[in-house]
């Protein structure tokens, strides 16, 4: 097909693509090379922002490693719990449909509103959690203890997003061929061994997909932190996206925030590619 005016027909699509994808990336790169804040214009200052980021901003790197910790931990927990739940309702059990819907409810709620409710839950003096624990003489500082606050963020994240993992893994389980399971039972595999040697390996491709999707999502943790702790106490629950948000939209250091965003994007692309490769090597043999 060689058609003279094909570009005319391609243009509307390309225009949208350029408008919403290509231009913003180029603009962010340009922005990161400027000292743009609320009073300067788009003045070119070279790599100054990047030099500052790599030599003089431990807070960004701390928030980045905190983010890595939080997203890996939450995704691993979501995977384990999601797999367990999916496996449970995959088998013929009583009220199967009821459970399948029940496990999806957290996903149907609005994250921000649910986080507000969780914050109320974990409120140190007024929340119901400490109300109950108080009877036993405990009143943990869910939101103001630096270590415990991370734990609280993890709880809320896991609660909110396990259903998504559950849904993907259940779909995967339901799509598995039945025959290998028949064979495995006959071949002397007890239910536990059947899971280890048949179910899990057969689920490997789906697991990798689900984990990568959730890692991408989880590395954007923002709303939970914003509502629950606002990154506090101190910076103990601050994640990269939240820190970039503070720099860019609270302190209006747009150029610097852009350089952080761009660095963050590059790191994420590289690390997710590596993770996907490693997972594939680990779970799929060839």
């Amino acid at each position, binding site marked *: 097909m060689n058609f003279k005016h094909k570009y005319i027909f391609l243009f509307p699509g390309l225009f949208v693509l350029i408008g919403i994808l290509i231009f913003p990336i180029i603009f962010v790169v340009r922005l990161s090379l400027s000292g743009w804040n609320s009073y300067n214009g788009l003045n070119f200052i070279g790599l100054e922002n990047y030099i500052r980021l790599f030599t003089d901003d431990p807070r960004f790197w701390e928030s980045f490693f905190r983010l890595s910790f939080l997203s890996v931990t939450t995704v691993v927990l979501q995977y384990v719990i999601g797999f367990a739940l999916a496996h449970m309702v995959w088998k013929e059990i009583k009220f199967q449909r009821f459970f399948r819907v029940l496990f999806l409810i957290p996903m149907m709620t609005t994250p921000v509103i649910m986080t507000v409710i969780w914050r109320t839950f974990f409120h140190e003096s007024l929340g119901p959690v400490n109300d109950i624990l108080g009877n036993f003489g405990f009143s943990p500082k869910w939101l103001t203890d630096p270590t415990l606050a991370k734990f609280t963020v993890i709880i809320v994240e896991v609660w909110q997003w396990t259903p998504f993992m559950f849904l993907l893994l259940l779909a995967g389980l339901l799509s598995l061929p039945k*025959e290998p399971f028949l*064979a495995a039972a*006959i*071949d002397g595999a*007890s239910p536990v*061994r059947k899971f280890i*040697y048949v179910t899990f390996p*057969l689920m490997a491709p789906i697991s990798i997909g689900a984990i990568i999707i959730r890692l991408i999502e989880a590395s954007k943790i923002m709303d939970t932190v914003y509502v629950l702790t606002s990154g506090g106490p101190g910076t103990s629950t601050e994640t990269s996206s939240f820190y970039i948000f503070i720099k860019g939209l609270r302190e209006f250091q747009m150029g610097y925030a852009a350089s952080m965003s761009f660095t963050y994007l590059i790191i994420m692309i590289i690390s997710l590619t590596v993770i996907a490769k490693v997972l594939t090597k680990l779970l799929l043999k060839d």
Partner: protein
Amino acid sequence: MNLVGENLSYKLTEELQLRKISFNFEKGKLYTILGRTLSGKTTLLKTIAGLLMPDSGTIKFEGKNFLEIPVWERNIAMVYQQFINYPHLNVFENIAFPLKQRGLDPQKINEEVFNSLKLVGLEGYEKRKIQELSGGQQQRVSVARSLVKNAKILLLDEPLVNLDYKLREQLREEFKNIFINGLSEESIVIFSTTDPREAMELNGEVIVLDEGKVLQVGAAKEIFENPKNLKVAAISNDPPMNILKAEIDSNKIKFENIEIDIPDHLSKIKDKNFNFGIRASDVELNDNGFEFEVELAEISGSETLLHLTRGNAKIITSIEEVMDFKIRDKVKINFKSNKAYAFDETGNLASSPFGGSSV
């Protein structure tokens, strides 16, 4: 010490159920379950394997209640009609799977797997992925996997049915060798099939199953020679035995204006009306015979199957050569009456050319 089933019943659907099946399988023997589709063959095998729990009845093996033992502890091997393997493992790992479950040491596993690969003729394929194999090779892998266990009970559920003609012939021959050489005296082999020729060729003890009931049990030869009733005669012959409503009058068998001299072995029949049975291979073309009209002619391998009609009588004859017939051609045929069967009006065998009779 046998595998004994008593009054096994299981209801899956209205047309697929087991109705009070009893059996007694002895070690060191080959059993063939012969029956049409939906006769309950697979259901019965699955019940023995433990994949299905019967609604009532008992299965005992070596004196123990088999139904209380979970599937994975029963030491059974099963080959299915679909080629069932583990898609995520290669050929070697597939065959090694049951041995790994038992926790044998790798040296031993290696040895056993290569032995059984040799037995099914797949040496050199151990590194291949299952998806890279042809259907026949995949089925060989699952046969190897079932043999490697040295299970006390080996169940084969129509293992040849999904293979092409040539391969089926070849594997059937190999199966016979495997059953003779590859199995210990301690094993019970149960093979299910819809194909009477397969049952005859394997030459074991045959159990004829229909609508979830056992119709007849006996050696392959016995089932072939003396089918107990019309149903068995139909199931154990391919094409099914021709059955014609006939009557006996002054030492002649009469139907549709045909008169045949009564052969000796049918002369004892007392009833006037009876069912005259004759195999397709015992009907021959003969210029002095009775005229029939060709309804359909099919060539199957090196034979020609002719579907013929005359009035209300419909018969099938098989001719041992490839011949060209047109629909509505007239042909003349003769019946080898010394090979004829008689079944009474209720369908039970009255007299057979091999001595079986109820009179």
